[in-house]
C-alpha cells in the first residue's frame, strides 16, 4: 500500500512540550515540508526567538540560531548578508515580532533583506502565561487585562502594514485552522520561500494559530472561536505578491 501521509523527512516523532491543541508544530511541519520540496533544508538557517516555539527543540533538522527576544529579523539580516546563497528564515511569535521587535521586523522588511519572516499570530503571549499581545482582540481576556480600544489600542494588522512597503516581494497571512486553511498556508509559505530563493527578495508570512491554554478555550472549540472572532479582524490572504 502506498504511504500518503507520515512524518516528513527532517522531522521526528520526539515528544514536544507544546500544549494540546497548539498549532506551532503545524507551522514547523509546513516549514520542513516546503524546504524539502524546494530541496533547501540542507541549505537553510532558521533564526528562532524567545517564546513558545522553543518547545519544538530537537524535533526538526534545520540549522537554527537562537536570537534574543524580538531580534530574529536583525539576526537574520546578519546571517543573510554573510550567507546570501542560504535560505534564511526568522520564526517568531506576535509579541516577539510585532511588539518588542517591531522595529527590527519592519526595517528588515523595508531594507528588503533576503529572508523569510515567519510570524505566529495567536493573539497572546503564550510562554509567559497569557499576557496581552499586540494582536490581542478587542474584548479578549488576558492576564494583564481585557483589551479595550480606549486604553490599550487596537490589534495591530502587521501584514497589511508591510504589504504597503516597496521592498518586500511577498506578504501574506494564512490560518493554521482547518485542513483547507493549512493547505492554503503551505501554498503561501512555498511562495514566500520561492520569492526569497528565486528572486532574492524579502517575504513575510503570518500564521494565525491556536492558543487554547491561554485563551481559556477548549481545543475542540478553538475553530469556532477563531472563525467568529479572529478571522474578521485578521483576514487571510496575500497582501503583496511578486508572482
Amino acid at each position, binding site marked *: 500500500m502506498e504511504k500518503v501521509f507520515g512524518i516528513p523527512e527532517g522531522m521526528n516523532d520526539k515528544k514536544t512540550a507544546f500544549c494540546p491543541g497548539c498549532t506551532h508544530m503545524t507551522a514547523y511541519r509546513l516549514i520542513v515540508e516546503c524546504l524539502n520540496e524546494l530541496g533547501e533544508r540542507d541549505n537553510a538557517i532558521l533564526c528562532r526567538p524567545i517564546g513558545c516555539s522553543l518547545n519544538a527543540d530537537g524535533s526538526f533538522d534545520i540549522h537554527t540560531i537562537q536570537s534574543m527576544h524580538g531580534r530574529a529579523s536583525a539576526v537574520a539580516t546578519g546571517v543573510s548578508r554573510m550567507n546570501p546563497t542560504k535560505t534564511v528564515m526568522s520564526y517568531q511569535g506576535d509579541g516577539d515580532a510585532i511588539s518588542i521587535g517591531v*522595529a527590527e521586523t519592519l526595517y528588515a522588511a523595508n531594507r528588503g533583506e533576503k529572508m523569510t519572516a515567519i510570524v505566529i499570530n495567536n493573539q497572546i503571549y503564550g510562554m509567559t502565561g497569557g499576557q496581552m499581545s499586540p494582536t490581542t482582540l478587542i474584548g479578549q481576556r488576558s492576564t494583564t487585562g481585557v483589551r479595550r480600544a480606549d486604553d490599550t489600542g487596537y490589534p495591530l494588522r502587521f501584514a497589511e502594514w508591510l504589504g504597503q512597503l516597496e521592498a518586500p516581494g511577498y506578504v501574506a497571512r494564512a490560518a493554521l485552522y482547518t485542513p483547507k486553511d493549512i493547505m492554503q498556508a503551505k501554498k503561501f509559505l512555498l511562495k514566500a520561500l520561492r520569492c526569497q530563493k528565486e528572486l532574492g527578495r524579502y517575504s513575510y508570512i503570518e500564521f494565525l494559530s491556536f492558543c487554547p491554554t491561554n485563551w481559556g478555550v477548549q481545543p475542540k472549540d478553538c475553530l469556532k472561536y477563531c472563525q467568529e472572532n479572529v478571522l474578521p479582524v485578521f483576514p487571510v490572504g496575500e497582501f503583496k505578491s511578486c508572482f
Partner: protein
Amino acid sequence: MAKKEVMQGNEAVAESALRAGCRFFAGYPITPQSEITEYLALKMNDMPGRAFVQGESEVASINMVFGASAAGARAMTATASHGLSLMAETLSFCASQTVPAVIVDVGRAISSTDPAQTNYNFITKSLGHGGFRPFCFAPATVQESADMVYEAFDIADKYRCVVFVMTDGMLGHLIETVELKPYRELADMPERDWAPHGCGRGHVTHGGTPYIRGEALANRQEEIYAEWERDYTRVEDYYAADAEVLVLAWGTVARTAKSAVKKLRGEGCRVGLLRPQTLFPFPNRAIREIDERRVRHILVLEDAIPYQFYHDVMYALGGKPIPVTRYARSMGVQVSAEEAEEQLRRLL
C-alpha cells in the same frame, strides 16, 4: 616596513578592522564614533564578501553583528556610551552563546559629546546581565587603537568572546601618524567549524552552538579570565622603575599625564606612570608589585566621577602601605596636563 599614514583615530580603527578581516559591520550614528560608521559605509559594500548595514538602532546593530558572527563572519560594531547601554542584552547573549564580537566604544560623557571614561565599570565588570566579562583593550594613541582592533579579532576568535577596544572622543578624533598592518585574506581567517552552515542531516544546532553549555560554560569563563590575566595583561611603564610618585591612569588621561610626567622628569623629579593597556584582564600583578619602599605616593587619575578605575587600583594594591590620592574630572570635563602636573607637584 609599511608606509606611515596620517589618520584620524576613528578612521584608523575602521581601516584596521577591515585589514584584520572584519566582514560585517552594523552601526547606528552616535557622536563621537560616527566616523567609524561613515568610513566603513563608504568602503565595505564595495569589497567582495563584506557587508555594511546601518542599523535602525543600536539594538538592531548588535543583533545583526551577532547573526553575522554566529553564521561565521568576523563582525564588529562601534558605539558610544548611550548606545552601549542599548546593546547590553545582546552583549550578554554573545558571551553566553560564545559568539565572538568586537566592539569599539568611543566613550563620551552622559550629558555632552565630550570625551569621558565613565563606561569603565560598564565594560570591564559585566556584559549586561549574567556577569560575563569581555576582553578590554585601552589604547592611548592612534597607532595603538589600530593595532588593538587588529588583534581584537584574533582574541575574539580564539576565545569565542566579546572584545572591547575602549577609546574616547579625544582618541577617536585625534590625528596622528599610524603604520597599519597588512590586509588579511578573508580565505585565511580561522575556520569557525561551529557556525551553522545549513543543516547536516539529523543535525540540529542551537544558540550559536556553544561548545559547552550550562555551568560548564560558566566555569570555562573563569579559566579563560585566569589565562588572560596570566598571558595577556599589558602595562606601559613610563619612568616607573625609579619613581617615587607614581601616576596610574588609562587611555586619554594617561596620555595627558605622560606629558606632565615628562615635564617634571625634565626638572629632575622622580615621577613615573604606569598605564594599563588592558583593563580586563586588569594588571593586578604589576600594581601589587609596586615597591612600597620606593614609591611614596600613588596618584590615580581618570575622567570619571563617581570614581571607577580608582577602585580597581585599590583592590590590586591589596592594602599596601602606600598613600593613594585620586583626582578626576567628569561630565565632559577632562583632566588637563596642567592639573596632572599640579597634582604631582603637591605630592612631590
